[in-house]
């Protein structure tokens, strides 16, 4: 009988023989874990849970701590945008697009306007094209910043969250300068924009593009070689290229799996083929690669912003077509013809020819498609949003099953969902 055991036998509860707090002896027999056998547990996560990034609900079957099955439930934020769109003029749909992916509202506005213009056969002006590129890339930066901040919080890193949200705040200030709104921008109109950029906007955006890479470098330094970050993300939620394609993933999720497909390069719109930027491709398709892809995409967006500012041409932002673009207030009040056009546009809306058009744009979260079907009236018969995060989320069970419950949080964060878009 060892000395230590004797002491324990003499000790009263919680105190050893000498009156010191008792420690569990190293030699004490370890109790065998209870035999749970085949018993599985059902865990409900959400819909109100900080780590589900919105009102996503996951019903998870657990064997110990391992996810055996993951059943996502969506639809808690369903607003019927597609149905509402069938009762609205094309320009009236634009405010609805703000509210789908509310982390990148400007890019959604651009997506819808491009689809409507394709349907009507409208060519937008050079200045409008470049301004829309600026809007899209600003959206990409804020969306990726929110993703970075919230994901790092999910995985226990608080500091990058503050840095990322500070940068996002600066873009929001720019959006406010331009459109008057921080979140619900409603920037585009069919055939143009709601407003030209104000004085001082270019200088402020240049200041942003000059200083933003410094923050990205700081985030890179604090996360990329961080043992906790790497340990929690590397090899987690892996999808091979073939699986990613088969699950219809798009955007950073697809590219992190090693598929070099970017709509800006492969189906160019807004003249993206004339900008010099790289398509960021991952190698392993795990959470870590998705992080690297998004971080590097911020650098590339910054490059595109700089080039767009350099080439920003002068000229009108709206097409010269009185059937599509509202006349100025003074003209509508003084010129009979302008007033008629104003009246027809407001009362009847812009009529689209019979037919259909689909335009996919590379949104921060993936391919945002807008599919418009017209029967010749001013309201679409069908407005379909191809929601990138909805489709990316559908691969969640495939990625999460077999991982630990804590990895499920990391994997879910890596999908970059926004429930306004998933549920629409």
């Amino acid at each position, binding site marked *: 009988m060892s000395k230590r055991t004797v002491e324990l036998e003499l000790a009263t509860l919680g105190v050893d023989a000498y009156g010191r707090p008792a420690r569990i002896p190293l030699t004490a027999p370890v109790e065998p874990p209870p035999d749970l056998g085949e018993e599985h547990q059902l865990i409900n996560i959400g819909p109100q849970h900080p780590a589900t990034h919105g009102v996503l609900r996951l019903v998870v079957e657990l064997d110990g701590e391992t996810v055996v099955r993951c059943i996502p439930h969506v639809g808690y934020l369903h607003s019927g945008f*597609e149905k509402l769109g069938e009762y609205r003029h094309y320009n009236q749909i634009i405010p609805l697009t703000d509210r789908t992916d509310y982390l990148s509202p400007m890019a959604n506005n651009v997506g819808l306007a491009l689809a409507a213009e394709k349907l009507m056969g409208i060519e937008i002006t050079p200045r409008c094209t470049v301004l829309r590129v600026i809007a899209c890339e600003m959206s990409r930066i804020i969306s990726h910043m929110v993703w970075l901040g919230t994901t790092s919080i999910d995985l226990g890193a608080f500091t990058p969250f503050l840095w990322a949200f500070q940068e996002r705040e600066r873009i929001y200030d720019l959006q406010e300068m331009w459109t008057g709104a921080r979140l619900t921008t409603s920037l585009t109109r069919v055939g143009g924009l709601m407003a030209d950029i104000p004085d001082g906007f270019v200088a402020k955006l240049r200041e942003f593009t000059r200083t933003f890479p410094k923050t990205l470098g700081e985030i890179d330094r604090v996360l990329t070689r961080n043992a906790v970050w790497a340990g929690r993300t590397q090899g987690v939620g892996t999808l091979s290229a073939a699986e990613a*394609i088969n699950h*219809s993933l798009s955007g950073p999720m697809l590219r992190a799996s090693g598929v070099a497909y970017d709509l800006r390069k492969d189906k160019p719109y807004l003249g993206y083929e004339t900008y010099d930027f790289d398509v960021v491709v991952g190698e392993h398709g795990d959470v870590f690669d998705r992080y690297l892809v998004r971080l590097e995409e911020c650098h590339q967006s910054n490059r595109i912003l700089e080039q767009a500012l350099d080439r920003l041409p002068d000229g009108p932002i709206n097409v010269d077509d009185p059937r599509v673009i509202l006349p100025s207030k003074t003209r509508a009040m003084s010129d009979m013809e302008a007033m008629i056009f104003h009246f027809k546009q407001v009362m009847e809306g812009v009529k689209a020819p019979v037919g259909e058009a689909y335009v996919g744009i590379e949104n921060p979260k993936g391919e945002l498609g807008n599919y418009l079907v017209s029967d010749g009236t001013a309201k679409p018969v069908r407005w379909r949003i191809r929601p990138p995060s909805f489709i990316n989320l559908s691969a969640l069970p495939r990625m999460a099953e077999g991982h630990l419950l804590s990895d499920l949080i990391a994997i879910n964060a890596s999908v970059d969902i926004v429930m306004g878009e998933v549920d629409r």
Partner: protein
Amino acid sequence: MIPGALREEVARDGETIVFVARERLLEAMTWLKNTPGQQFDYLVDVTAVEFRDRERPLQVVYFLRSLTRRADVRIKVELQSSDELAVDSVCSLWHGADWLEREVFDMFGISFRGHPDLRRILMWETYAEGYPLRKSFPLRGRFSRAEQVRQALNASPEAHYSLEELAIAEAAGDLPDDMRERLRRGERGTIQEPPAAAT
């Protein structure tokens, strides 16, 4: 040529639309995915269109893309609204079709034969007002606001879990008798016809 192709059109965005016979959809899709020179390995989207003109058939639209060839094609299947609204599921070819087909089922009531798990997705499973994106569905819904509130307040807690999920937790045995009775009667998952006098 695509097996079962009926006619071709060019959309206003320049893409080719191929109308395929409903019975031969799966054959056509398999051919498009697996034939060398076609290789449409990526399913962009699945959706449906119903026109305001009730005479026109419903369309189920498939957006296909070949990532290797960087080419797109749009496949359409027409369904007469008087017929049974059903097409074959393409889930076996593209996993991405899973949720997309569920959404079309949820919103239009078009069922997909052979889909592994065809349930409502955006609306809840006991949603009884019909299919929201059909043109016969009024913008504000079939039921009055009072009826909608009444149903929401009367929803039973177990309605948040499917029978399958309750079976995982072996919780079905722990439920109160009346709940178990309601579940056994199949109160969940059946979509009732809305009352005729709905506003």
